[in-house]
C-alpha cells in the first residue's frame, strides 16, 4: 500500500473496505442478468465446468451481456451443479443439477422468453410472493451458518468479496486489542476445537502465549484424513480468507510470527485456492510484514501434506513438516510448549480457526447464544450415505441426530428404514435408532460411544451390514497405523483378521469375546489417538448390533446380504421370463447361462455377487433373488455345451 504519511491501522482498514465495497456495489449494480455458479470440488465433479462453458457459449451466441461469478460450495451437494440466476424483474433463483443442456435452456427460456422453468428451480434466494423462498424448506431453514456463512456467496479467488461482506474487520480490531483480551474473548465464547477432541481453544492459546520464547508458530490443520469427510476442504475451497483471518488473530493473541496451513496434497483445488488467498492477503497488507501498517507481522506458508491419516495427529503433523516419517510422539511436552522445531506452536483445525473472526466481531455472548452451554457454536458435518439431501450442513450444537438426518437432510430415500449413523469416521462409532435423540455435542457423542471426530457422518439404511462397516474402518486404521506401538500395529491387524473371517463365514464362537478383549488392550496400549480410538467402530457396533455379529458367526448368515461370501444370487425359475436376456449381458463374469427351457441360471462358482443382474432384471419379473446363507440358493444345472 503506497502511503505517504502513516495511517492508523483503523484508517488503513477502512480504506481497504471502502474500496472493496465500492467494487462490490459496482458488481451488484451492473445492469443485465447475473449468474453465480458453484465451482468447488463437488460442483466440478458433477460437471460444473462444462456447465460454465455451455453458459458462456450460449450467452455469446445470443449476444447477451451477463455477469458470471464463480463461488465455492453452497453445501447442497445433492443438487450440484448449482446455479443462481438473477434476471431483472425476478427474485434471484437457485437452479439445481444444471447440466450444460439445462444452462442453455435457462438462457433461452428464462433470459429471452421470461419463463423461469419452475420445474428446475430449487427456490428463490429472497422472500417474494412469486416463488417459494429457500428458507421455507427445512434443508435451508434449519441451518445456522457461522463457519460457512459466506461459502457459496464470495468468490474464493477474490479477497475483495470477503472484505466487502465484513471480512478482516475482526483482524483489524484484533490488531488494536491486547492479546490478553483476544484470548479471554475466545475463552469466554467457550470455543472448543473442531478437530475432533473438543479441547478448549482459549486454553490452548493461553498456554502457548505463556510458553517461554519469542518465536511461536500457528498451524492450521487441514489434513482431514477421515475417508468419508470433506468439510475442511470445502471450507478452504469456498472461503479461505475466513480461515486465514482466524489464523492471524490467533497469531496476534499468542505472539506468533509464523503460520503454516497444512493441507493434503490430494486436495489440489484447496491447495491452489489457499495459496492464492495468502498471496492476495499479503498484497493488501493483511498478512506478511507489518500488517495494516502496524507493528504486527505474520507470515503464512502453505505446506502440502502427503496423505497419511496419522499426520492429522498434531505431533505426527509436526514431524512430517520437519521432513520425517509422520509418527506421533509422547505428549507432554505438548506442541504449545514444544512444537515445530521446538517452538511453542498452536495447532487448530480449519473450522476452529474459521469460528474465531465471528467471535471477535460479534462477541463471546453472541457465540454462546448458539449451541449448548458446554459446546457453544455450530457443528459442520458432511452428511452422506442413505439420505435424501446429502451434503454439507452447519447446525447449532445440540441439534439431535434425528433432526439432522430427518428434518434437515430429508430422511432415508426409497422408503427404506434407518439402521445406523456412523459419526466421526475411523475414530467414531455406529449409533442405532435408539440414539437418534442424542444431541450433537462433544460430550453426548462420546457418552454414546461415538465422537465428533472430523465431522464425517454416514447414514445407513437397512441394507448396510454393521460387521462389514466395522471391517471397513479397521482395514483403514490397520493400513494407516504408523507402526510405532505394538498394540496399535498388531492389535488392529488381529481385530481386522477376526472381522474378515466373520465376513467370510469362518467366524468362531469365541471371536466375540476376543474382539472385546483386543479392543480394550488396543485402546489402552496405544500412544496416540489413532490407536486409542481405532476400536470404536467395532465396540459400538458390537454393543448396539450384537445380533448381527452372532448371525455371522453362528448361522454364517449376513442379515443385510452385504458380505459376499455369505450370500448367493439365484434366479427364480417361476418368475424368469423365457427368452429374456437382460441379465446375461450385464454379468461381468459370464456366470449366467440359459437353461434347457430358455430360462436363466447362475453358475455359483463364477458369480462374483456384484448384484448387476438384480438391477438388470426387468421390474415386472423381479426374478433375481439374494439369499444368505448361500446354501439356500437352489441349484440349477448348467446344460451341457452343445457341439455345433
Amino acid at each position: 500500500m503506497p502511503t505517504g504519511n502513516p495511517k492508523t491501522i483503523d484508517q488503513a482498514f477502512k480504506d481497504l473496505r471502502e474500496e472493496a465495497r465500492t467494487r462490490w456495489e459496482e458488481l451488484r449494480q451492473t445492469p443485465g442478468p447475473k449468474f453465480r455458479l458453484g465451482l468447488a470440488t463437488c460442483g466440478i465433479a458433477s460437471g460444473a465446468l462444462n456447465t460454465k462453458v455451455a453458459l458462456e457459449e450460449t450467452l455469446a451466441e445470443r449476444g447477451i451481456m451477463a455477469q458470471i461469478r464463480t463461488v465455492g460450495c453452497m453445501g447442497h451437494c445433492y443438487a450440484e451443479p448449482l446455479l443462481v440466476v438473477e434476471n431483472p424483474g425476478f427474485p434471484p433463483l437457485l437452479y439445481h443439477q444444471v447440466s450444460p443442456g439445462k444452462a442453455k435452456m435457462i438462457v433461452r427460456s428464462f433470459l429471452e422468453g421470461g419463463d423461469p422453468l419452475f420445474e428446475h428451480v430449487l427456490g428463490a434466494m429472497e422472500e417474494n410472493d412469486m416463488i417459494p423462498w429457500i428458507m421455507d424448506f427445512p434443508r435451508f431453514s434449519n441451518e445456522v451458518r457461522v463457519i460457512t456463512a459466506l461459502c457459496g456467496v464470495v468468490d474464493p479467488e477474490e479477497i475483495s468479496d470477503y472484505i466487502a461482506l465484513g471480512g478482516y474487520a475482526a483482524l483489524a480490531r484484533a490488531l488494536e486489542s491486547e492479546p490478553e483480551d483476544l484470548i479471554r474473548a475466545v475463552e469466554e465464547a467457550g470455543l472448543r476445537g473442531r478437530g475432533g477432541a473438543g479441547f478448549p481453544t482459549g486454553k490452548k492459546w493461553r498456554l502457548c502465549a505463556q510458553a517461554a520464547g519469542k518465536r511461536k508458530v500457528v498451524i492450521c490443520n487441514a489434513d482431514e484424513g477421515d475417508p468419508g469427510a470433506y468439510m475442511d476442504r470445502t471450507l478452504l475451497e469456498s472461503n479461505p480468507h475466513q480461515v486465514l483471518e482466524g489464523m492471524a488473530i490467533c497469531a496476534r493473541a499468542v505472539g506468533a510470527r509464523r503460520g503454516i496451513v497444512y493441507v493434503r496434497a490430494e486436495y489440489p483445488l484447496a491447495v491452489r485456492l489457499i495459496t492464492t488467498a495468502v498471496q492476495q492477503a499479503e498484497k493488501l497488507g493483511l498478512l506478511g510484514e507489518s500488517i495494516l501498517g502496524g507493528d504486527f507481522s505474520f507470515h503464512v506458508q502453505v505446506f502440502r501434506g502427503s496423505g497419511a491419516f496419522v499426520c492429522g495427529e498434531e505431533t505426527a503433523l509436526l514431524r512430517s513438516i520437519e521432513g520425517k516419517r509422520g509418527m506421533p510422539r509422547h505428549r507432554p511436552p505438548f506442541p504449545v510448549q514444544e512444537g515445530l522445531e521446538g517452538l511453542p506452536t498452536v495447532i487448530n483445525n480449519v473450522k476452529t480457526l474459521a469460528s474465531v473472526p465471528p467471535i471477535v466481531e460479534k462477541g463471546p455472548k453472541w457465540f454462546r447464544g448458539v449451541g449448548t452451554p458446554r459446546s457453544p457454536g455450530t457443528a459442520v458435518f458432511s452428511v452422506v450415505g442413505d439420505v435424501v439431501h446429502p451434503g454439507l450442513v452447519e447446525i447449532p450444537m445440540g441439534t439431535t441426530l434425528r433432526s439432522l438426518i430427518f428434518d434437515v437432510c430429508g430422511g432415508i430415500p426409497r422408503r427404506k428404514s434407518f439402521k445406523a449413523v456412523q459419526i466421526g469416521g475411523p475414530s467414531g462409532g455406529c449409533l442405532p435408532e435408539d440414539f437418534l435423540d442424542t444431541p450433537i455435542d462433544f460430550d453426548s457423542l462420546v457418552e454414546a460411544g461415538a465422537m465428533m471426530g472430523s465431522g464425517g457422518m454416514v447414514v445407513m439404511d437397512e441394507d448396510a451390514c454393521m460387521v462389514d462397516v466395522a471391517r471397513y474402518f479397521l482395514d483403514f486404521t490397520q493400513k494407516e497405523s504408523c507402526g510405532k506401538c505394538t498394540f496399535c500395529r498388531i492389535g488392529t491387524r488381529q481385530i481386522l483378521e477376526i472381522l474378515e473371517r466373520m465376513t467370510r463365514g469362518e467366524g468362531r464362537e469365541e471371536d466375540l469375546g476376543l474382539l472385546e478383549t483386543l479392543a480394550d488392550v488396543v485402546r489402552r496400549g496405544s500412544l496416540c489417538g489413532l490407536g486409542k480410538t481405532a476400536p470404536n467402530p467395532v465396540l459400538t457396533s458390537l454393543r448396539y448390533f450384537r445380533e448381527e455379529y452372532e448371525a455371522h458367526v453362528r448361522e454364517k448368515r449376513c442379515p443385510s446380504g452385504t458380505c459376499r461370501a455369505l450370500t448367493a444370487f439365484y434366479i427364480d425359475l417361476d418368475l424368469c421370463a423365457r427368452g429374456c436376456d437382460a441379465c446375461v449381458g450385464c454379468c461381468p463374469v459370464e456366470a449366467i447361462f440359459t437353461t434347457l427351457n430358455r430360462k436363466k441360471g447362475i453358475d455359483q462358482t463364477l458369480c462374483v455377487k456384484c448384484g448387476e443382474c438384480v438391477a438388470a432384471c426387468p421390474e415386472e419379473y423381479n426374478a433375481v433373488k439374494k439369499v444368505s446363507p448361500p446354501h439356500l440358493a437352489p441349484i440349477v444345472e448348467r446344460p451341457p455345451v452343445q457341439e455345433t
Partner: protein
Amino acid sequence: MHEQSKEFELTAEEAAALDEIAGALGRFGQERGNLIPILQMVQERLSYLPPRAIELVASHLGMAPCEVYGVATFYNQFRFHPPGRYRIKVCLGTACHVKGGDIILENFERKLGIRDGETTPDREFSIERVACVGCCALAPVTVINETVHGHTAPSKVEGLLLGFQIERERKEREDKKHADGESQDH
C-alpha cells in the same frame, strides 16, 4: 497377475525430466525440512519416484537413499510405479464403500489383470484406490484422469475400458495413416 517388482525403463521424456530435476533441486535448501516438498516436486514432473530420482534427492540432502525411501514410502501420496496413461482412481471412501466401491475396484482389477497400485506393462492403465473425492452424492465414484464418473456400476466398467480402447485404436489408425501419408510425400 503379472510381476510388479521389475523396474520400469525410463522413457526419453522421463530421462530429460530427470535432468531438469537435477537443476531444479538447486532452488531448494539442503535442510531436511525440504524433503517432502522436493519429493512432491519430483513426482509432479515425473508422476512417480523412480530409483534414479530418489538417488538425486538423497545426494542433494546428504541423506542415504534408503532414508529417503523410508520417508517416501510412509506417505500414500508417493508412487513408485509410473501411472498409466489412463489413471483409474476408484473411490473407497466411506460412502462409496457402503455403495459397493470394492466391487467396482475388483471389476477393474479383473478386466485389466493388475491390482490396485499397479500399472499395466504397456503403461496404458493404472489402478489406485482413493479416499472420498468429495462427491459422495454420486457414490460409487471412479475418477479416470480428471473426469469423475458417478454411479459407476460393474457393468459400466467394461464400457468405459472399451471406450478407451476404441479411442486408442482410432488414434493408432490415424497416426498410421498420417505416417503413411508422410512417407508417400517423400
